[in-house]
């Protein structure tokens, strides 16, 4: 099996009932990849808002003209095509766009400006620090991996702290009583933590070290829309094992290991070979 080419996708899931704001089935089209957590963010957001959309699975080893034309700068998924305006790219930009374009449908961001700034800050942190640290764990082994695991723990500690005594103290979700943008962003990467723990044998989310984060994650994963979005764990495991094998088979010497880890960290962060963002 070519680990770079994901197994055939599940049948395209039909979206929830059409939006009150009249987004018909052909107004919204999402170009994505089944294993991409960035794609999952947008799928989850669309489901939470109850928006109908068409989904097109991209073969990232053979990108469609539609993808290349609609995202010439990065050539990555996800891309949201909203007819007749055009393409919106970058998952965080797409999530904000959905709130702006469909303000009457279940908001993803809080309404208070300070709370919005906080949610945005931690979304930035997730993509800037936590994501790459997790990717580095996956892409490395031995001493380099130990250092990467320590980095993940440092980052999780910060989030745990915000849950315990900081900005999100006493809340069920980062968004409050219901899932919001930060839950989506953190949650749609966090299932990879369990996958990587299995595949690399590194301990990432110790429920004793990060009890609040762990409890939040389980609660998030139990939500209907989330269960509907995240692929089955055995498919993710199979995919991750293949990718991990490929990465490790390139690391025959220590220096090759360092080089491969740097490249692979950049690619495996997105878990679709540098093709999603």
């Amino acid at each position: 099996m070519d680990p770079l080419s994901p197994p055939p996708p599940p049948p395209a899931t039909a979206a929830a009932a059409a939006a009150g704001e009249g987004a018909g089935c052909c107004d919204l089209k999402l170009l994505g990849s089944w294993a991409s957590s960035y794609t999952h963010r947008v799928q989850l957001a669309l489901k939470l808002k109850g928006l109908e959309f068409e989904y097109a699975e991209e073969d990232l080893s053979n990108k469609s003209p539609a993808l290349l034309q609609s995202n010439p700068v990065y050539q990555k998924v996800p891309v949201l095509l909203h007819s007749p305006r055009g393409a919106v790219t970058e998952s965080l930009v797409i999530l904000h766009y959905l709130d702006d374009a469909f303000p009457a449908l279940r908001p993803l961001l809080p309404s208070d400006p300070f709370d919005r700034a906080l949610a945005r800050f931690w979304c930035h942190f997730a993509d800037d620090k936590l994501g790459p640290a997790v990717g580095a764990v996956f892409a490395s082994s031995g001493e380099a991996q130990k250092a990467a695991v320590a980095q993940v723990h440092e980052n999780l500690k910060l989030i745990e702290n915000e849950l315990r005594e900081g900005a999100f103290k006493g809340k069920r979700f980062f968004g409050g009583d219901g899932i919001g943008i930060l839950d989506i962003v953190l949650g749609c990467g966090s299932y990879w933590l369990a996958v990587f723990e299995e595949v690399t044998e590194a301990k990432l989310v110790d429920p004793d070290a990060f009890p609040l984060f762990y409890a939040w994650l389980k609660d998030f994963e139990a939500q209907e829309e989330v269960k509907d979005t995240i692929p089955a764990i055995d498919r993710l495991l199979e995919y991750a094992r293949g990718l991990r094998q490929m990465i490790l088979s390139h690391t025959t010497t220590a220096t090759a290991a360092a080089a491969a880890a740097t490249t692979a960290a950049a690619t495996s962060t997105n878990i679709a070979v540098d093709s999603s963002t």
Partner: protein
Amino acid sequence: MAKEVKLLGQWVSPYVLRVQIALELKGVSYEYLEQQFGENKSELLLKSNPVYKKVPVLIHKDRPICESAIILQYIDEVWGAGGPAVLPSDPYERAIACFWVSYIDDKFGPSLVGLIRGKTDEENAAAAEQAILGLELLEEAYEKSSRGKRFFGGDDVGYLDIVLGSSLRWIEVIEIMRGIKLLDNAKFPLLMAWAERFRAAAVVKKLMPEAGKLMEYAKEVQARMNAAAAN
């Protein structure tokens, strides 16, 4: 109510300049607190931005907001009535502006930093290439989003104008330091004209650091780096 709003900044930082421009555009009075470089970070900075320990930090009613792009959005939302909207009001146009802001922060900005800090010819060449690619993309983006108007945002300085424009003084310094032309009039006529208009805007003229002072600072940084490398 000047004490209600504080800005932790450093005069050399284009990211801080972004916030100053936005506050000025909205007519917000604030207390500016210049922060030290290097090891001597203030208690207030460490307390306000424990995760990154960087400027700018906007403190409003004793609550900190970090990351310049996030601060700009916050200013637009809180002081909406103070001046023209910083972010586009149309959702799609806003998404396009946000995309380019994110591109500038992820790719273009780092290429400029690469040009300042580059130690080898290879590093500098790679950074220059990335910077020029960025300018090509932004020249095209300007053409598309402005639709013949004076700024990316239309008639007034907006989000993307502020974010890109805040780097103009550093681009000038880099061009002199590295002996290269980045904002080439032949290659980027629209951006050049836009840059002149941006620099001429009253709020920008008031706040942009002097080129000479910035050049001196850049030389000091280089000298320190060379000394460190020699050891």
